[in-house]
């Protein structure tokens, strides 16, 4: 018993150093070589940092493509989903309200065209992406709000479609980068 305890104590100390310190430091050293130096890849627009490439942010106006509803309002100090169950009546009411609101802002859109992702909260609350369908359906509104030709906005969307894993994975559009490009579109 005493012998076991002594071994345990020593082994624990050595392993804490090996696994809790040496190992993360090694990974941090490797991380230094990556974009963002291991502290998250930042996005710069107009000479200032406007966010992190991987972290979604809130876009509320009609002028921007909007990301998904967020249970934490895109505050990346934390993260969180809605954790609403699929049969929860309050939740279904909330989704219904989002749909109605979306239809008000996008009068040209048919209800049946709205992809679910735009009215349901993401898992992390920080989802940086929407699907191409989620972007296309907003093209008309954004183009109108910015008084841009619809085709050029549509082309911009097309250009931002990512097709990871040789097209097997879901196609995504990074909302932040799309909106930065949108700001630059004249």
């Amino acid at each position: 018993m005493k012998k076991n305890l002594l071994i345990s104590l020593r082994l624990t100390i050595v392993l804490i150093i090996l696994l809790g310190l040496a190992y993360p430091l090694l990974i941090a050293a490797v991380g230094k070589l990556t974009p963002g130096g291991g502290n998250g890849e930042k996005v710069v627009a107009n000479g200032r940092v406007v966010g992190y490439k991987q972290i979604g942010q809130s876009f509320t106006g009609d002028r921007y493509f909007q990301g998904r509803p967020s249970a934490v309002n895109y505050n990346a100090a934390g993260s969180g989903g809605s954790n609403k169950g699929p049969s929860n009546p309050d939740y279904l009411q909330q989704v219904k309200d989002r749909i109605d609101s979306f239809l008000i802002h996008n009068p040209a859109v048919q209800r049946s065209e709205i992809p679910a992702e735009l009215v349901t909260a993401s898992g992390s609350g920080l989802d940086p992406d929407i699907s191409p369908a989620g972007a296309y359906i907003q093209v008309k509104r954004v183009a109108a709000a910015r008084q841009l030709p619809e085709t050029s906005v549509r082309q911009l969307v097309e250009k931002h479609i990512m097709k990871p894993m040789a097209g097997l994975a879901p196609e995504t559009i990074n909302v932040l980068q799309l909106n930065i490009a949108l700001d630059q579109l004249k």
Partner: protein
Amino acid sequence: MTGEIMAVIATFLVTLLLAYPLGRYVARVYAGQKTITDFMAPLERLLYRISGIDPLQPMNWKQFLKAMLTINMLWLVYAMLMLIVQGKLPLNPDGNPGQTPDLAFNTAISFLVNCNLQHYSGETGLTYLTQLLVITFLQFVSAATGLAALIAVFNGLKHRTTQNLGNFWMLFVRSVTRILLPLCIIGAVLLAVNGTPSGFEGKDTITTLQGDTVQVSRGPAAGMIAIKHLGTNGGGWFGTNSAHPFENPNYFTGMLELVMQVLIPVAMIFALGFYINRRRLALIIFTVMTVGMLCLVIPNMLAETSGSPAIAQLGIQQPTGAMEGKEVRFGPAASAYWSVVTTIISTGSVNSMHDSSMPVAGLTQLLGMMINAFYGGCGVGLLNYLIYMIIAVFISGLMVGRTPELLGHKVEAREVKIAALVTLLSAFLVKAFTALAAYMVAHHPDMAWAVKPGNWLNNPSYHGFSEMLYEYTSANANNGSGFEGLGDNNPFWNITTGFVLILARFLPIIGPVAIVGLLANKKFIPESPGTLRVDSWTFGMVTFAVIIIINALSFFPALALGPLAEYFSMIK
């Protein structure tokens, strides 16, 4: 859609492709044969010398368990202390406070037992110091504990008659140095390259494109995320775990994390075949487990990819499936696969919010944890499977008219008693505590506790019941995932799940090790035509049936009142 399903199949196949050679390698490592990681030998010798370990000293099952439990109890005390005082320790750039004693109790146990149920959010509940010195450390050593226990069982099954199940310290150290650490370094580097933070900078404040000021939590997460999957631990660095874009930046890392969490559990099945030289048995166990997994994955994926019927009624389209709680970059198909894998393998990391899963998906997640042996956790999955095997051996032995034998050793009252106790334990822990919680919600919703029982649930009705059931099922399976809507960071949940966690971890390890220790002490009986071979497909079928029947009988009423009731009321 088909593309997404193809990607899931590819992920699984890649896992198998890696797991098979890894299994062979693992067998060689524990058998002390030459491997490509022999350069670690000096490090191991150093660890032995510093700690005063004689790696060659044989241990019987009691000595083995004593050593294992001693060091585990030490870790528990250490972890709890650190978590309580973390606020005053260095490496706390975000200035997070120490944990309350009940939360520290829960967290320390949770990570000690490889569960990683989290009643806090990583961004605010821990400091970088505790994330590394407590959480990451425990994620390594708890996985290594499971592996060492499994190898002890292998040793008992390997030899005809033996007292010696192997030296715990040696098996434990090798699990760290030869298996977990090298694989973690590879995994963590891949994550870091793909954008997961690994540096030590604290929370950042930025002004967004549209001018909001928000904060972004960061930290040296990559290393922890690698071990949380390879060790089937599951706790997230960030609150939303692997749904968080830093923790799981893109589809590739999603695949990587999926492969990492399934890798060792599957490799250990193959290792069983190589190590005790019963490849056919390994193949049959693998097949049974895979069929079991498919039985859960397929309905889950169907439910998720066909979308929510309630959302469909609102008149919008769900082109890829149900999206509440899911990330666009993963999509419902990969998220469905993940949600099953993480529950059958006791990882408990999530890339979507299980609370928002479709009822059938929630059902399969619960079943995965209740069964807890389709692949199962790092090392412990096979131990759980062994318990089912003992019961299957016993019943089918009787059915062929012969005192039951497992690999040449008679299974008698003592072994059946242990196996029955372990089986009983999980039914008891899950149902008794869920009943207690349900009782509080039903009868004392306004109890003047930190959080009133009436406010625990994030969802009403059947789904609320599922939240409570899920929490204890997850704790009992040492899984760690949750229906996270549950308000669980308060003394009631911290303390009750803490007890469930610790009992459900150690008894199911002690049980199989003791059974094999007892069996290995018995006279070896060579096989004859009258012997029921456990490496036959028929026996595989029996084991599968035993798994299904035991769990169905134990949990059917609870499942009927939770996910089944929700499912039927949604489709009507």
